């Protein structure tokens, strides 16, 4: 730098800046109010939208629009505050670079959001090409001819490339309006036109006020105008907030009050930066407009929320009543059915036992089949009733000291004839020691019988081994079979209410899907746990129960 230039700079008596952006060189504290008041709500809402779907293109683009805008605002603040010509030149170049980018990303966001698709390759090329000259020429004299030291205003003097940048901003703004008009004409779904119109108004208000503010301040040399232009950004964010609340846009359920109150806080907080009374009038007027708009939106959104909540409460009550009535009805039907089937089973049983005289040989197989079928029916209905009772908490457990070895032994003995008929080897290995636990004999019998019977049902050939082991604090029952095994998909459904595995249904079509659910509840009521293991289809299964020793 030549001594003449250094002397000229010194004669301007510019104040030194702190953190690049804070200095007395800023012509009015209104600048901080307009800049921060516009960029913070824009960034907040863009970050919120992005966080609700970081992989969605419109969400990424709204964040990029806000970040470009924030970069512009930061650059502009530095050019206002700094006393160093080199910084002015560099940050002014940043303004030249990012200003068209704000428009470009705003356009790209608008297109992706409204049309719900990406630009085609040719559209991408068409809309990117205008940016190339700006990027190439930004660090040259074509963008900034030099630093104007003629009047101590700390300005860079803009070249033709910067003017070109302003022109392409118009291209993107006009493209938004054209695509908006096309989408508006094509819109068919209810509310779609309102959404397009609102977004178009919001985004146009943002871009036009931004451009007009910048252009008018240059022509009129009234630096306040540029500051007002930035208030288009929070207006845009207010429209976005409204769209989120009204149309559940961006897959986000934003409570309107949160967004609006945050914006108000920031605006009121910014009042602290104003010192002169004249500026306070301006700022309070702008804030009042904001409060009026946001207030109406806030009240409306809260009103809508309350209406929705009241409706949900009414629906929840209706649903609960309907559920209760359904449970009572199902209970009633299953009880009635159980009564009918039990009576029918008793009739078949009496016929077979000869209570009404001897049966002809031709009738016997039919009556035996009737008895078998009714017995299955009674068991099935009982299983459904048990599951319903467990779910409604009606089951009580009468616990007393119980010898598990004896209990499991008797169940195995009961089920052995059935296994023998299938040609399965059902064996039991009991360990040494005491297997006494505190438990409900009837319920645990039901649970263990269910598990062992399941293994027999799902094992076409081979063996079912039942073994008991005693640990220090618990007893472990293992039922291991060489059956059909359990696929990982079916494993997820085991022990769930009415859970039918795909593979298991092929083997046991009569399964109610409640058996293992009941087992799990009974075992857990005894502070134990039950689970299954299998290496997959046709690899056999292992059911393990662990119960605490009393």
């Amino acid at each position, binding site marked *: 730098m030549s001594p*003449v230039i250094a002397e000229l700079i010194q004669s301007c008596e510019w104040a030194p800046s702190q953190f690049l952006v804070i200095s007395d060189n800023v012509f009015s504290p209104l600048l901080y109010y307009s800049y921060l008041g516009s960029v913070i709500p824009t960034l907040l809402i863009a970050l919120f939208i992005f966080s609700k779907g970081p992989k*969605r293109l419109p969400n990424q683009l709204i964040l990029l629009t806000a970040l470009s805008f924030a970069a512009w605002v930061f650059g502009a603040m530095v050019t206002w505050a700094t006393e160093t010509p080199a910084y002015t030149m560099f940050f002014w170049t940043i303004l030249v670079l990012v200003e068209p980018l704000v428009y470009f990303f705003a356009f790209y966001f608008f297109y*992706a959001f409204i049309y719900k698709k990406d630009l085609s390759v040719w559209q991408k090329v068409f809309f990117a090409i205008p940016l190339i000259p700006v990027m190439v020429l*930004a660090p040259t004299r074509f963008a900034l001819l030099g630093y104007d030291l003629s009047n101590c205003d700390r300005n860079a*003097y803009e070249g033709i490339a910067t003017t070109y940048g302003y022109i392409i901003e118009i291209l993107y703004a006009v493209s938004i309006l054209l695509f908006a008009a096309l989408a508006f004409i094509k819109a068919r779904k209810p509310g779609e036109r309102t959404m397009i119109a609102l977004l178009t108004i919001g985004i146009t208000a943002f871009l036009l006020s931004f451009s007009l503010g910048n252009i008018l301040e240059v022509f009129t040399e009234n630096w306040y105008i540029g500051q007002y232009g930035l208030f288009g950004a929070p207006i845009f964010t207010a429209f976005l907030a409204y769209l989120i609340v009204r149309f559940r846009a961006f897959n986000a359920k934003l409570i309107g009050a949160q967004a609006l109150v945050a914006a108000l806080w920031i605006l009121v907080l910014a009042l602290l930066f104003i010192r002169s009374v004249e500026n306070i009038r301006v700022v309070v007027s702008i804030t009042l407009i904001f409060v009026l708009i946001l207030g109406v939106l806030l009240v409306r959104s809260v009103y809508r929320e309350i209406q929705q909540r009241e409706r949900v409460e009414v629906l929840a009550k209706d649903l609960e009543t309907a559920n209760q009535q359904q449970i009572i009805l199902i209970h009633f039907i299953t009880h009635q059915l159980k009564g009918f089937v039990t009576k029918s089973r008793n009739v078949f049983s009496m016929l077979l036992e000869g209570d009404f005289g001897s049966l002809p040989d031709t009738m016997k197989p039919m009556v035996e089949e009737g008895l078998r079928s009714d017995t299955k029916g009674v068991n099935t209905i009982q299983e459904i009733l048990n599951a319903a009772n467990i779910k409604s908490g009606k089951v009580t457990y009468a616990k007393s000291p119980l010898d598990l070895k004896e209990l499991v032994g008797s169940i195995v003995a009961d089920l052995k004839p059935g296994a023998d008929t299938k040609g399965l080897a059902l064996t039991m290995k009991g360990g040494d020691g005491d297997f006494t636990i505190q438990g409900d004999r009837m319920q645990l019998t039901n649970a263990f019988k269910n598990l062992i019977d399941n293994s027999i049902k799902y094992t076409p050939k081979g063996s079912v081994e039942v073994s008991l082991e005693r640990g220090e604090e618990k007893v472990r029952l293992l039922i291991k079979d060489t059956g059909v095994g359990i696929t990982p998909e079916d494993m997820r459904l085991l022990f769930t209410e009415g859970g039918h595995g795909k593979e298991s249904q092929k083997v046991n079509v009569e399964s109610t899907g409640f058996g293992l659910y009941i087992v799990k509840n009974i075992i857990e009521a005894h502070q134990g746990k039950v689970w299954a293991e299998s290496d997959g289809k046709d690899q056999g299964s292992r059911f393990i129960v662990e119960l605490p020793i009393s």
Partner: protein
Amino acid sequence: MAATKGSSLYISILLLLILISGGVAWWKYVHQQDFVYFTTEEEIPDRFDPGSYSL
């Protein structure tokens, strides 16, 4: 709609170009101090005159 590889690449290229351009500006203006000072109004060229851009 989800972002695609195409859209991510497109945005990345644009941001990279902006970064390069910004980097060159930093190097030129802040590091090299390579710019002209106009000390009087008469020195300020006409931005629409091609002669103002002679390299």
